[in-house]
């Protein structure tokens, strides 16, 4: 069963390093997303695994077989890697009908006509595009083209499926719909999916593991919820989650046993780690990370704030508040509408607030925060 291993893979375009010493293991049956801002090397990584791009250095193994190695000079061409690839812009051949597009790969496998026909109609039905078989791609809507592209990729039954931002050209509604379809497809085909996206929500909702990259360097490779709750550094914390995490800069020092006092402009806070004890230098510069859902607005809260603006969206409400010199974001379940400049009280709850080192950006500890 296919397992994909990348060892020390580096890709340079001239002087620019697109991917830097990447080590990654993608297990059989995983749905891995390569996530990151544009230009972070995620598409390059995918294209290298598929064989559309050759790494400058390193080694890639698929299913125990070396498909690329800069040392032994192995570079197996993409058609011999037994993979499927779904392109961002679908790459449907404009001069072929939907059926011809889907059957092209099967013809290359020298299937006989009858078998091709039944496979094509099976796929058309599976992706609910039966009625479009004779049409040309330009006569289809974006969503329909997307389905044709998926059908074409699935036709040959690849065990590994690569997808390069396949949903980014669809409108919001269709995108949500297709996300659900892709997740089902993953379960039904028992294949390994590697999926490139810059949309953290897609990564969160779809994948079994998320590989977050920045400027060619791997930041964190973990299940999405772990990435969400315990981001390895400030970049990851900032990139994942919407609305984004609150960051508060301050000075921390150890007081008592296992308690850290944090001095922030206008607020005094006590941090109790839950992930083991930590030691700070006196007055070490730190950054506090608090997810919006951990800031609870309510009458019982100890801290006082002023409402800056309220953004109700029906199911939930985003409230921007001003506490001391800090602008904070809170998410409240349900619809509430505060007046601008209303006075409110708030608390910090949960045990997954984070202390980052300001200098290195690294995650130092998770814990509870209390307002003094």
């Amino acid at each position, binding site marked *: 069963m296919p397992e994909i291993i990348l060892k020390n893979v580096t890709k340079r375009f001239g002087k620019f390093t697109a991917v830097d010493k990447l080590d990654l293991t993608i297990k059989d049956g995983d749905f891995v997303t390569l996530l990151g801002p544009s230009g972070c090397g995620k598409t390059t990584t995918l294209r290298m695994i598929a064989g559309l791009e050759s790494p400058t250095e390193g080694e890639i193994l698929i299913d125990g077989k070396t498909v690329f190695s800069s040392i032994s000079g192995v570079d197996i061409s993409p058609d011999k890697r037994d993979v499927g690839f779904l392109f961002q812009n679908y790459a449907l*051949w404009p001069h072929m009908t939907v059926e011809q597009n889907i059957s*092209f*790969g099967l013809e290359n496998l020298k299937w006989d006509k009858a078998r091709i026909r039944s496979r094509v109609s099976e796929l058309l039905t599976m992706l609910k595009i039966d009625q479009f078989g004779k049409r040309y791609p330009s006569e289809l809507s974006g969503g329909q083209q997307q389905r044709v592209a998926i059908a074409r990729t699935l036709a040959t039954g690849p065990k590994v499926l690569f997808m390069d931002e396949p949903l980014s050209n669809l409108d919001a509604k269709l995108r949500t719909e297709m996300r659900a379809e892709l997740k089902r497809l993953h379960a039904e085909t028992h294949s390994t999916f590697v999926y490139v996206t810059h949309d953290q929500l897609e990564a969160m909702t779809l994948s079994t593991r998320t590989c977050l990259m920045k400027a060619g360097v791997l930041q964190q490779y973990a299940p999405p919820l772990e990435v969400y709750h315990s981001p390895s550094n400030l970049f990851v914390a900032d990139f994942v989650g919407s609305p984004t995490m609150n960051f508060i800069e301050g000075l921390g020092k150890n007081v008592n046993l296992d308690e850290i006092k944090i001095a922030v402009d206008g607020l005094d806070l006590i941090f109790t780690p839950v992930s083991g004890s930590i030691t700070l230098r006196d007055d070490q510069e730190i950054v506090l990370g608090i997810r919006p859902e951990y800031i609870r607005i309510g009458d019982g809260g100890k801290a006082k704030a002023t409402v800056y603006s309220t953004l109700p969206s029906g199911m939930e409400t985003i409230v921007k508040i001003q506490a001391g010199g800090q602008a904070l974001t809170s998410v409240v379940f349900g619809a509430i509408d505060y007046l601008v400049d209303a006075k409110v009280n708030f608390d910090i709850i949960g045990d997954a607030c984070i202390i980052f080192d300001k200098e290195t950006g690294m995650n130092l500890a998770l814990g509870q925060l209390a307002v003094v």
Partner: protein
Amino acid sequence: MTIGNQIKSFARKPHNVILAVLAVALTFLTLFPLLSLARDTFIVHPSEIMTVKGSQAGDLTAFHWKKVFFDGETSMNLFYRPFWNTVQVSLWSCLVSIVLGGSVAWLVARSDLRWKSFISVVFIFPYIMPSWTLAMAWLNFFRNRLIGGAPGLFTALTGIATPNWFAYGFFPIVMVQGLHYAPFAYILIGGILRNMDANLEEAAVILKAGRLKILSRITLPIIMPAVLSTFLLVFSSCMSAFAVPAFLGTPVRFQVLTTQLYRTLNGLNPGYGYIMALVMIVLGVAILAVNQAIIGKRKSYTTVTGKSSNLSQARLKGLRTPVSLFLIVLVSLVAILPLITFAVESFIMAPGDYSFKNLTLAFWIGPGSADIGSGEPGILLNKYIYLGLWNSIRLSVVVAFIAGTIGALAGYAVVRTRGTRLSALVNNLAFFPYLMPSMAFGAIYLSMFAKRNLFIPSLYGSFALLVLVGVVKYLPFASRAGTNAMLQLSNEIEEAGLILGIPWWKRMTRIIFPIQKASFLSGYLLPFISCMRELALFVLLIVPANRVLTTMLFQYNEKGWTQYANAINLLIVLIVLLFNTAINKATGASIDKGIGG
């Protein structure tokens, strides 16, 4: 609204006024001449009184039509044979240019060819240079003793006499036109290859298609519309080409429609010529109509977008250096060697003798002696050459200025009123001259303005007539440039100025023009360069007082004064290349950007 108010509100918008004026003027300058031409095919012209028995000038007659189409051997020689020659020459030229241009386009866009930038720049040269450049170079190299002169460089160097079929007529015309229009194919097909989404081919690779299969099933079908477009454009250009067949075909009496047109209009039977002009126009319109239909239908092919930055390049492996070297040699032969032969030919005293002691500066700065060229002085001392040069530049500047400005205004008005019937009419009228072969267009204006017409006095032999014909003929380039420039510009840019109360004139000169400077300027450049190197359009309309360089070149060549002709040709080529490069450096516009109509 009353009709009066409707007119007032219509006239308050500058683009409406421009549109209305252009509609009237262009109808008069393009459609009306066509009718006049058609009428000329049915009347007896003054020089034909002797041939059409018992008739008077101006009488109605079907004589010309009968002679051209239904008079056995006469029609054969007059029309059918030249027509068939035209078709054959054009078809083969297309083949040469598409195979050559397409291959080079693929190599440059899709392979790891060496020295790409040099090859791609120099490969375009033949198109920037006048079309007869290669024809003259061919003669310099391969001419034989047939036409009485001395043999060319090739025979001088090798001692091998070139056979007639190789030196003159069908074969060299095809080769020369094929090479001249290969850049057409290179630019059109290369454009598609560069913009074609690499994912389309990668998707096929992933699905285990072989290299040949990808080429035949994916790449070729996708570039096919561009190939077809190239085919039609090269075909119509070859069909209307005059200079090349005149230089290479005339020595062996190989006639095509354009040379036949020139002979008949300059001879005693203009009526025949007008019919041929009409035939060429009909063919031109038909070809462009087919082209438009194809482009319109397959539009979606060329607009495929995607991450084309990561084009996979085919590795030529062992062939890389040989192929690259071959192309370097080829482009040098085609683009640079001709210039050297012009220089060489212009420096030798007795044609055909390439020894050192035969070198002379007489044809450049000699005072002129009675035994060479009827005592013409060297071209740098010849006041008629300077007059011709002055006329050429004056004409090109005036034509470029008027055509460019009208084109920009037309583009503005057409885009602003897009969707209306008037807008479509003006757009088509402004493009119509493109369909007409230059020689036929010259013939039309000759027929229409040789005598007093409506309120316009006879313009025959005047500078104004040359300007007029140049402006109308090159308006398509300028209006295309203007339309493209305006299409890229959103309405809101101008409306923002309108809201602030900026008058129309200022909006044009301070907002719209500066933003799309390069596009608009190419609307001035294209007419300028085209005019500098134009022969077919002017050759019928020129009188000695307003000769331009190109027509002088043609006359010197006809008289067999090859040294003068080569010297003048070198002058023209250098001027054209110089201006094109200078303007390209300054504005980014270039003659080869105007390909494809």
